[in-house]
């Protein structure tokens, strides 16, 4: 795998001075890319590259970057640490009592790194070759004014009897709800009940300061025939009574579950 001598427009000019390399720091696509650039700087075939020398260059580079207080991403530092480790492995011969049986030798690690560099370089190279190929719309052209193939889609409409019937049902149903007029219900409103209760409580006989106890049901009109009206009257009366009790106008008492509810008016100074 040769170098990019024939491609001067390569993304990083060759033989950059370390300072120039630093200047381009942010444009590196990660530590491997930086290593690759450093390797290219060695101007030898990647197959013959000295990983040891490369590791030293990289560490040197990172040191300089640190001196310049450049923001160094974590993966560059991880790579630096790893390269320092690799360097030590390459320099110190592996001793026999090393418990590193499952660990790769420095040479194997260097080989792996060299492979990664070669592979990345190959990809960077073919990426450029790819974009040197004739490209559609730049070097070759499609028909300028295409008329399009005329494919007429003729639909076969699908429907079965059920669809027709349920559609008609849907219309009938809509009309039903559209024409529906709610019946006017005879109900006693809470306001009405409140007024009635106030009025009638005032007319109760007095016992001391308060009125006598009276059954709440006795306040409902006698002539109620409609069941719904009766129920609504009772409910409204009860609600009104509770409201009055809350305001301190009345006392309410019930002697047990389902027993009649009694109510009496309390006489208060501020009344009337």
């Amino acid at each position, binding site marked *: 795998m040769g170098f990019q001598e024939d491609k001067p427009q390569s993304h990083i000019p060759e033989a950059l001075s370390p300072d120039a390399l630093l200047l381009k720091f942010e444009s590196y696509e990660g530590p491997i890319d930086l290593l690759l650039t450093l390797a290219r700087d060695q101007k030898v075939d990647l197959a013959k590259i000295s990983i040891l020398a490369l590791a030293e260059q990289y560490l040197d580079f990172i040191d300089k970057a640190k001196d310049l207080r450049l923001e160094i991403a974590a993966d560059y530092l991880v790579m630096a640490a790893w390269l320092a480790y690799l360097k030590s492995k390459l320099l110190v011969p592996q001793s026999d009592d090393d418990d590193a049986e499952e660990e790769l030798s420095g040479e194997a690690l260097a080989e792996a790194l060299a492979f990664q560099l070669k592979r990345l370089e190959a990809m960077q190279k073919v990426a450029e070759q790819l974009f040197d190929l004739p490209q559609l719309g730049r070097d070759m052209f499609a028909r*300028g004014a295409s008329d399009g193939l005329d494919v007429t889609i003729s*639909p076969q409409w699908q*429907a079965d009897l059920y669809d027709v*019937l349920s559609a008609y049902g849907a219309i*009938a149903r809509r009309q039903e709800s559209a024409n529906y007029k709610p019946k006017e219900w005879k109900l006693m409103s809470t306001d009405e009940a409140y007024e009635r209760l106030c009025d009638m409580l005032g007319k109760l006989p007095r016992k001391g300061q308060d009125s006598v106890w009276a059954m709440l049901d006795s306040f409902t009109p006698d002539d109620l025939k409609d069941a719904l009206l009766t129920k609504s009257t009772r409910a409204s009366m009860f609600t009104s009574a509770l409201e009055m009790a809350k305001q301190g106008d009345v006392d309410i008492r019930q002697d047990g579950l389902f027993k009649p509810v009694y109510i009496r008016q309390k006489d208060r100074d501020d009344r009337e």
Partner: protein
Amino acid sequence: MIENRQESLRLLEAMIFAADKPLQVGDMMQWFPNVDEGEIFELLKTLRQDYDGRGITLVDNGGYWSFRTATDLSEQLNMEVEVDRKLSRAAMETLAIIAYHQPVTRAEIENIRGVATGRGTLDILTESGWVKPGRRRETPGRPLTWVSTSGFLSHFGLESITDLPGIDDLKSAGLLDRRPAVQTVPLSGELFDEGGEDAQDSDE
């Protein structure tokens, strides 16, 4: 002067092909700086001959040159593809109203559906062969009425239009079920029956 006739022909061919609109000889001359109009015209005629009898032809429309598909192929190129499609709800309802209420005018259909009927709806139904225009109603404006066709009967397996189930049949089949919301109101059983049925009776 044309130096390499074959190359010039190729360039001319590619140029006309890639252009997004028909080209005049004047346009083409930009590509052939040392060639005069007559020579380009000569090349064009050669090119046209090359394509003689092919599926693509070079045509000259009032001095504008372009490649076109051969006219005799246009019919074969245009293809009909049959695709199954489901009728829209609007179309389905319109079809049902025409079937039940025919002859019925568009205004009546809209009145029954409670919404305007898009132009496309009756077109689609006509295209499906299930409805057709009937006589004009002899009322002011003489509106067109719509009726169902024999194709409608045969498609839906009906002997005659009177075989369509009536409102009562639909109701007992559950097709007129009320909205569930109504049933959640207490006492609706007794209270709502008269109201509901009034509305629907008045329809028939």
